[in-house]
């Protein structure tokens, strides 16, 4: 069984500390990294990918430092960057053939793999389209297809759903769920709802520190009996926001339904709710504040 191990990872950019003593062990499963913008998620992913060097600490793949593994480690990786990069005039099929070539896949096998993954991500009919003409969701699917060409044991998805509409996000989530068998999938996002029912472990990164790493149920236990929903008048909202940590707000008839987080019942009419991953995210990162 494959194992990825991070040992005391620190990363500084000049005087700014981006990552602070991150140690983790990953085994096959989906690991979701939740964190606000600038929390260090992308930096951590790039260190795992050996794109950048940590200031201190090391990454091990099956017990070997990735620095020493080189080609064999890269052969085990699939990476979907935040914004799928491409040459502007390249067609989908050519792009996948090119990336497959970079991955060292022989031509005859590559053609089959490209066609297989084009069908899997439902882009076969669009294979001769230029990538620049595709929608955001289609580009992300191209990103997934290129990452899967070498059948990676470690799949890293850096905010893959950013900029996608809800329908595309659901489609993308199903695709990831299908790929998650016997692989380590590292998934960074700040859209917590994408992770519901998908992730095996939640990692919360806050200002470069690992706040939590646990199964979603256990992580959510910390929020148990702290999530409340209350219907208020619109003019009461300012007061509520000043007094409590507020999550989702939605219109409900002539009133406003507010989700808020507090250790005891905040208002007489408040109803206790089961915490979700979105609550967890908002609890930790609302308005960039940490708790």
């Amino acid at each position, binding site marked *: 069984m494959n194992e990825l191990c991070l040992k005391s990872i620190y990363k500084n950019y000049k005087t700014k500390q981006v990552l602070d003593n991150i140690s983790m062990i990953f085994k096959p499963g989906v690991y979701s990294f939740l964190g606000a913008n600038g929390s260090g998620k992308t930096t951590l992913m790039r260190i795992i990918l050996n794109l950048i060097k940590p200031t201190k600490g090391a990454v091990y793949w099956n017990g070997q430092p990735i620095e020493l593994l080189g080609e064999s480690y890269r052969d085990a990786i699939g990476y979907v960057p935040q914004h799928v990069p491409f040459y502007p005039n390249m067609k989908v099929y050519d792009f996948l053939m090119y990336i497959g070539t970079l991955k060292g896949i022989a*031509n005859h096998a590559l053609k089959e793999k490209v066609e297989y993954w084009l069908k899997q991500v439902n882009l076969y009919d669009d294979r001769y389209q230029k990538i620049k003409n595709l929608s955001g969701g289609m580009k992300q699917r191209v990103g997934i297809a290129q990452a899967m060409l070498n059948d990676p044991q470690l799949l890293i998805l850096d905010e893959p759903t950013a900029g996608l509409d809800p329908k595309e996000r659901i489609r993308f989530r199903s695709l990831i769920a299908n790929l998650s068998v016997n692989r380590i999938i590292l998934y960074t996002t700040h859209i917590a709802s994408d992770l519901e029912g998908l992730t095996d472990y939640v990692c919360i990164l806050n200002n470069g520190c690992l706040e939590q790493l646990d199964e979603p149920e256990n992580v959510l236990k910390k929020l148990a009996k702290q999530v409340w929903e209350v219907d208020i008048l619109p003019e009461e909202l300012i007061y509520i926001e000043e007094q409590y940590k507020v999550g989702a707000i939605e219109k409900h008839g002539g009133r406003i339904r507010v989700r808020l987080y507090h250790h005891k019942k905040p208002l007489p009419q408040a109803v206790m709710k089961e915490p979700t991953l979105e609550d967890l995210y908002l609890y930790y990162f609302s308005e960039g504040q940490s708790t």
Partner: protein
Amino acid sequence: MKQLIWWEWKLLWQQKLIYIMLVAILSLLWISKTYFNMSIEELNAFEEIQNPITEKDIQEAREILATKEFEIGPEVNVFYRIDEAQTLMDKQSTIINQLKARPQTSALEKEITMREQVNTMYIEKTEYPIFLSEFLGGEGLIAIGILLIVGLYNLFARDQQTGMIQYTLTSKFGRCKLVQAKLVVTLLYTMVIYIGTVIFSVIFNIYRTGSHVNYWMYIAEGFNSPIQFHSSLSMSPYTLTLFEFLLIQLLFLLLGSICFSIICLSISSVVKASFISFLFSMAIFFLPFLIVNLLNLLAERGWIAKLFIYTIPYIMQTKRLFEAFYYLQISNKVILAPFIALGLLLVIIISSIVFLKIYNKKWRYI
């Protein structure tokens, strides 16, 4: 690896700027082309000259040119050429005498020996080889420079700008194999540009000189003439025929092109922005020409001018290396400019390749 080279080759040729520049260069050449004109009588007059030229020929030519009643006829060019052959010999003798008057050093001795061997008493219709040589060192050189720059300045920089570098660095082949592939593609592209330019130069100059229908039959002539008939090389101390000089020029043009293209590739791998990479490559190729022309350095032939003949574009041009006795003396050993230039090119090529390998091995995304 072959697959990767093929892809890089395909991507290189997808750059529209290459085709735009190619069309621009061809259009400019077509608009500015000049023709060689000589009447059939003049051409036939050359046929009557027996090489090498004798004292009798010179005397006869000078007598005719000095005669006031001389009627300007088609053969006048032949007499001028005979007179020029003697004048060139006289110039060499004058220089030799001046050199002998100075305190002798091993460099002076070498120059005197070389100049004593120069023999310009040989004339043919040299128009085609001179046209070809001038074109290769002029328009051809500029075309090679521009096409190499537009083809290569973006080779690494575009990966950086589009973000494609993230795939390269996380895929099995990695940056090192990609560098190898891009290096092979650079050399192939350079060869295509070089061979294309040489073939074009040969054909285009046949067209220019052959526009006078009667010159076609003399196209192959003139290659055995001494290089001193080449206007830029009249004072050259080298005993070379125009054919030998053309071969040397082609060699320097090839090595210079390879050297320059690897430098362009190295710049592209170091500089992250395409535009900066483009500017640096342009500066390396065109700045020496610009400085030399602005300061009129070659007319002075001072030490700064001597330094500039060892810049890549001037080495590629070749004729500056042969126009005078440029040398470097290490203890008693006199090394002539062409050998210095050759060594310099080889050192730059090897060190650029080593740099590319070492730099990119340690390359990181940030």
